[in-house]
């Protein structure tokens, strides 16, 4: 185990964490400001990825398809919010969970009807197909490096928006005390729709970035949604800063767990037991992290509500 390898795995963890952040950011805002549990967030990610793959195929260009997919997904998200989800804000969490779970099933079947059951292929843009040497001696895939760049840029932009703009102030007000913000005359309807659209656009961005690395397929939203929820819970509901820290923590723990846990176990267990235990423990590492955070900080690392 050398420093170079640790550094490379660090980059991998960063890359995965930043993608989780794109999903968790939208999720935590919706959860924090509207007090709404939206399980269909993962479906928006799936729809974004499918639209991205379709537009990329139609236009032949990754770069033209990207803004198209983000805008289209944002529109779908806003339509969903104003048409259906708005009616759920006043209901309890159980109704919200049931309704948005139904949305997952509907979205999966709609996608199956439109695109068929087979996974779609989305290729990384040609310019980013090679490798670059961020760390000397360890070539790193250029597309993954690009993803890291995009993730950091989005994190910075969101931070700026939340801290320095009027919309950001309203979002923060909504997250820390929704009723107070309401009674001060904030146009919450518009704010909610806007935030939902932003979350949907970020979903599409994540779908476009992860599409070439993973696969554009039905159900892709569910597995990553669970991890995004873990991020939200670790970071503290409604907090963008918490989502960023939580996402990076989850990304790092997951990557290093997969990479180093089996080796570590082999140090003091017989090989066959270590091989059986390693992958299982690595898959659990993220949830152990969540349990530990909840034990010491039940409201998450950066609770938005004081």
């Amino acid at each position, binding site marked *: 185990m050398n420093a170079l390898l640790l550094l490379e795995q660090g980059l991998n963890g960063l890359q995965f964490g930043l993608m989780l952040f794109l999903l968790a950011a939208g999720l935590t805002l919706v959860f924090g400001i509207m007090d709404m549990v939206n399980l269909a967030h993962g479906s928006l990610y799936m729809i974004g990825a499918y639209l991205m793959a379709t537009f990329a195929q139609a236009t032949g260009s990754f770069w033209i398809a990207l803004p198209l997919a983000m805008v289209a997904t944002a529109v779908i998200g806003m339509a969903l919010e104003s048409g259906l989800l708005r009616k759920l804000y006043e209901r309890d969490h159980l109704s919200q969970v049931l309704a948005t779970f139904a949305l997952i099933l509907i979205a999966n079947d709609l996608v199956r009807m439109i695109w068929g059951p*087979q996974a779609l292929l989305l290729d990384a843009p040609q310019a980013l197909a*090679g490798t670059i040497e961020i760390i000397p001696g360890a*070539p790193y895939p250029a597309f993954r490096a690009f993803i890291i760049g995009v993730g950091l840029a989005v994190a910075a932009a969101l931070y700026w928006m939340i801290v320095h703009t009027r919309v950001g102030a309203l979002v923060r007000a909504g997250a820390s005390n929704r009723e107070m913000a309401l009674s001060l005359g904030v146009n919450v309807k518009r704010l909610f729709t806007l935030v939902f659209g932003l979350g949907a656009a970020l979903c599409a961005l994540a779908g476009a970035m992860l599409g070439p690395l993973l696969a554009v*397929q*039905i159900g892709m939203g569910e597995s990553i949604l669970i991890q995004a929820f873990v991020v939200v819970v670790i970071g503290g509901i409604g907090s963008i800063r918490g989502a960023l820290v939580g996402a990076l923590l989850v990304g790092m723990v997951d990557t290093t767990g997969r990479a180093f846990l089996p080796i570590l176990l082999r140090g003091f267990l017989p090989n066959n037991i270590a*091989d059986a235990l*390693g*992958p299982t423990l690595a898959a659990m590492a993220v949830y152990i992290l969540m349990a530990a955070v909840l034990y010491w900080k039940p409201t998450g690392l950066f609770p938005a509500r004081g």
Partner: protein
Amino acid sequence: MKRILAAAALACMGFNPAGAADKLKIGFISTLSGPAAALGVDIRDGLNLAIKHQGGKLGGLPVDLIVGDDTFSPDVGKQLTERMLKRDDVHIMTGIVFSNILLAVAPAIFQDQTFYVSPNAGPAELAGDRCSPFFFNVAWQNDNLHEAMGKHVADKGYRNVYLIAPNYPAGRDALNGFKRFYKGATSGEVYTKLGQLDYAAELAQLRAAKPDAVFIFLPGGMGINFIKQYNAAGLAAAVPLFGPGFSADEDVIRAVGEGMLGMFNSSQWNRDIDNPQNRRFVADFEKNYGRAPTLYASQGYDAGLLIDSAVRAVKGRVEDKNAFRAALRKADFKSVRGAFRFNSNHYPIQDYYLRLIAKDEKGRLTNRIVGTVFRNHADAYVKSCKM
């Protein structure tokens, strides 16, 4: 009186020695959605082609093929199995791609005394001490293709190999099979989550371990993603990649493209095996489905031919379990792979070939047989099967 009672008892068991079924109900469960869907779809299409070649019948009986998508989930597979056994009352079941799903549904099928003809999954468990008189595998035992690659990699003089497989029964069978014939050092033996699609962490470990060859067993979308990421990480030029036919057949070649050129892999079947039934199968598969068949498709097709031969031998009386079993055992059909017979545990004894991905005369990337690794090869578990 005794005779009447016996007849009544037989009637209660639904056992009708005189009459044949009027149609053959086959329950087909496979993975038809998600990143591994190509495998199940190929098996289904291969089976359908076999039925088509027999004039819409198998063994003279019209076929009622009931298709279910397990969505890559053992739980869904179990629900489908229950439904097909109880409600549809199928005569035969087939179709499953993944061993973990097969192992989850197998007990219910065997308990129901329904035959299962496996066109793919061949777990060690069902070849050895848990072998069943109701189970037939028409493809291979899970270890076999990996054994062939283990022998090839050892013969080529590689001494330090890095191994990767998913963490599920067939993944363990795969690496056990490889190591049965490759006795050299391993600089890494990694089990990844089944269905994992991002291999950044594993590839970084692999690069640092500096192996002189890599062996992967990653079927379907897992293999497609791994090989794409392996190439994107610039490893392809440095370390040769080996795999069984599962990681190097038409489904992977279609998705990865030129990056597959020159990869050695193993299979019991290939499109260039020269016999009349294979030529017809390959030509008609391409004509009907507009794509080249994979080994999965050939296995689905052979499953159809096997069922056809056995149903024909018992003259449609598939309810006569003993006669039907004896007929299946004979494997009296012309397999597209050539010589094929069953061992005492109902797993194949057959040849295994070394294949190389190269350009054919039309410039298409495809597999070509370049050698025979094993002749009349049997699996390693047959001795512990007491049937």
